């Protein structure tokens, strides 16, 4: 830690981690809903829909907190100045947390906008917007005052402005359900395949540069190419969500073509990570941090790149659209691209915030490998369930519940893997909160 105001990042991370744990607990409950028969009396008061809304909103909340914390950590080092205002950063953390908690408690009482992933009621949306504006103001002012522009800063700021703008499209009520879904994807798709990728690419480039000691010029050159490819493929690639919603037929062509290219930037990201690690100028001090970096690049490619590619071709998507295949892709992609990115950031920044140069990573390694193995298994078992569903329900036309009957076993296996994931996550969270300096046995 070089600047005092970086300390605020710690509280963002500390807020994000328990929410992540809660997200997984609710996820296990969702898996139990697929595996067992939940009695009518429980379903009446706590239906699957409520639990799903909590699971997905917690995901967005903890990841945004993580991104914001990461940004507040990086900005001072990049601009070589203190943050514009730590007070505003505090205000915004509390506002966002309070909104999130209110929303989740509200879901339990049926206070919802009723649109998947965007369930937060309109009144709270405005608080989110205010929070986002404060965040952008704070980050922007720090950059403008310092005038030490770098590509990493620009990408980060661009991604965050884009993120906030897109959120606006999810707020209004649309009369026509086709238009509703059309703009719903501006939030969901253009977030995860546009603005979030920008933020991720910037944070990733920063950490890679710091831990490998590769020159800024080289890192930033590749950053330009990556974000260019992300946006080139990702913008029109939104079309793979428009195949079956009542949009014009040309989306099958545009969506199919551009989303077939979507793995390219992720592949490039993996290659240049490997390259930088190989060409590193600095000694790698904390091996776990770069294990996370490589894990992130690899599972990002598998989950978002390969799994995404597999079912965005219209001919395949016709059968797999809206099945557990989507769930398999969603879990692997979010975990690989964004959960691991956040955890990598935490493992990079937390030791520095606590003044530990070399940390003891034995528990952290167990956590990492347990989570990654469990999530890969979940990706596969969701996938098996999804293929069964596509074939039995869509190809053979045997009915929804017939297919669900055959899928039940696989959802049970998923739940079991979920318990292992939880164990890995708890290990990781405890480790992050209680990091200790490594005992140097050899030196």
């Amino acid at each position, binding site marked *: 830690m070089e600047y005092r105001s970086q300390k605020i990042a710690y509280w963002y991370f500390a807020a994000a981690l328990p929410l992540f744990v809660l997200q997984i607990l609710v996820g296990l409950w969702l898996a139990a809903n697929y595996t067992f*028969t*939940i*009695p*009518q009396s429980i*379903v*009446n*008061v706590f*239906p*699957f*829909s409520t639990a*799903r*809304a909590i699971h997905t909103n917690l995901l967005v909340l903890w990841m945004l907190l993580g991104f914001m914390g990461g940004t507040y950590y990086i900005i001072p080092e990049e601009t070589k100045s203190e943050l514009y205002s730590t007070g505003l950063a505090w205000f915004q953390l509390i506002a966002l947390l309070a909104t999130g908690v209110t929303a989740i408690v509200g879901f339990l009482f*049926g206070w*919802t906008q*009723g*649109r*998947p992933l965007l*369930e937060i009621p309109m009144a709270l949306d405005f608080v989110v917007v205010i929070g986002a504006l404060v965040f952008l103001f704070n980050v922007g002012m720090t950059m403008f005052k310092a005038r030490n522009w770098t590509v990493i800063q620009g990408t980060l700021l661009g991604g965050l402005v884009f993120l906030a703008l897109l959120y606006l499209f999810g707020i209004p009520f649309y009369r*026509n*359900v*086709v238009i509703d*879904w*059309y703009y*719903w994807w501006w939030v969901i798709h253009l977030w995860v395949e546009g603005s979030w990728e920008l933020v991720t690419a910037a944070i990733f480039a920063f950490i890679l540069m710091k831990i490998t000691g590769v020159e800024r*010029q080289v890192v930033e*050159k590749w950053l*330009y*190419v990556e*974000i*260019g*490819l992300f*946006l*080139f493929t*990702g*913008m*029109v690639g*939104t079309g793979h969500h428009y195949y*079956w919603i*009542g*949009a*014009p037929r*040309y*989306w*099958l062509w545009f969506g199919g073509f551009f989303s077939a290219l979507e793995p390219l930037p992720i592949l490039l990201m993996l290659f240049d990570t490997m390259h930088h690690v190989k060409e590193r100028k600095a000694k790698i001090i904390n091996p776990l941090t770069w294990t996370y970096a490589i894990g992130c690049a690899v599972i990002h490619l598998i989950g978002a790149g390969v799994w995404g590619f597999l079912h965005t071709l219209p001919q395949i998507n*016709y*059968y797999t*659209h*809206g*099945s557990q295949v*989507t*769930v398999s892709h969603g879990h692997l992609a979010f975990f690989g691209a964004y959960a691991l990115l956040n955890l990598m950031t935490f493992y990079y920044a937390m030791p520095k915030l606590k003044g530990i140069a070399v940390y003891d990573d034995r528990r952290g390694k167990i956590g990492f490998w347990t989570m990654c193995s469990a999530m890969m298994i979940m990706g596969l078992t969701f996938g098996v369930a999804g293929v069964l569903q596509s074939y039995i329900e869509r190809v*053979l*036309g*045997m*009915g929804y*519940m*017939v297919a*669900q*009957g055959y899928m*039940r076993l696989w959802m049970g296996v998923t739940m079991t893997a979920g318990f292992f994931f939880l164990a890995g996550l708890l290990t990781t969270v405890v480790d992050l909160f209680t990091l200790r300096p490594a005992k140097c046995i050899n030196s």
Partner: protein
Amino acid sequence: MTKKIAFWIFLIGTLSSTLLFLGLTWDTQRQVATLSHVDKLSDQVVAGKRAFEKYNCNDCHTILGFGGYYAPDLTKVVQRVGEEGIRYRVKSPELAFANSFRKMPNLHVTDQETTDLIAFFSWVGEINNNDWPPQDSKKRLSRGEQMMVAKVGVSPGAAVFQTKGCMNCHSLRGTGGTFGPALDKVGARKTAEEIEKYVQNPKGGNPKAMMPSQKDNLSERELDEVARFLATLK
């Protein structure tokens, strides 16, 4: 490659894709009016959409394939289970899903809201969405039927029974839905002609029947085949 070239790759890549995307968005906005029959998008349909959102239906059910995957897709629900079928499931889920291993909550939806919901679903079902979902497609289902006859070697009637959604409600040898009675021994009770007549107009045979008429769902040949198949089950 220099950093300058990299910058131009970024700029041109981003701008070209963004402009194309915005252009297509403009054209889509224009065409959706026809594709979704905006002229039939009445206030009642909108009220139905509001009810759909009020009860967060979309976090269990998908519609146009989006939402929760915990319950069946609702794009073609009116064609599948009929208006009365929807009313029954929404009003008394504890009865409708009594034998199901997955339950639906009773959310105390009012009668007016249910009527609005049905208007909403009827309108959604007519959207021209490239013939999705496949299991409700008139064109593609015959393909599943042919495949079963050819590969699995079942009778044409059995193939119709499996591919035309009969198993959404009825079961054979324990596989299938629990809304309608199991049909393992239906041939002992009814002849092929009686079955054919009943399927076309269930209310005619039993005024209290919940089953929607299959007149539009099945072609004459399919109706004939499935009735003959069922009549052999004794």
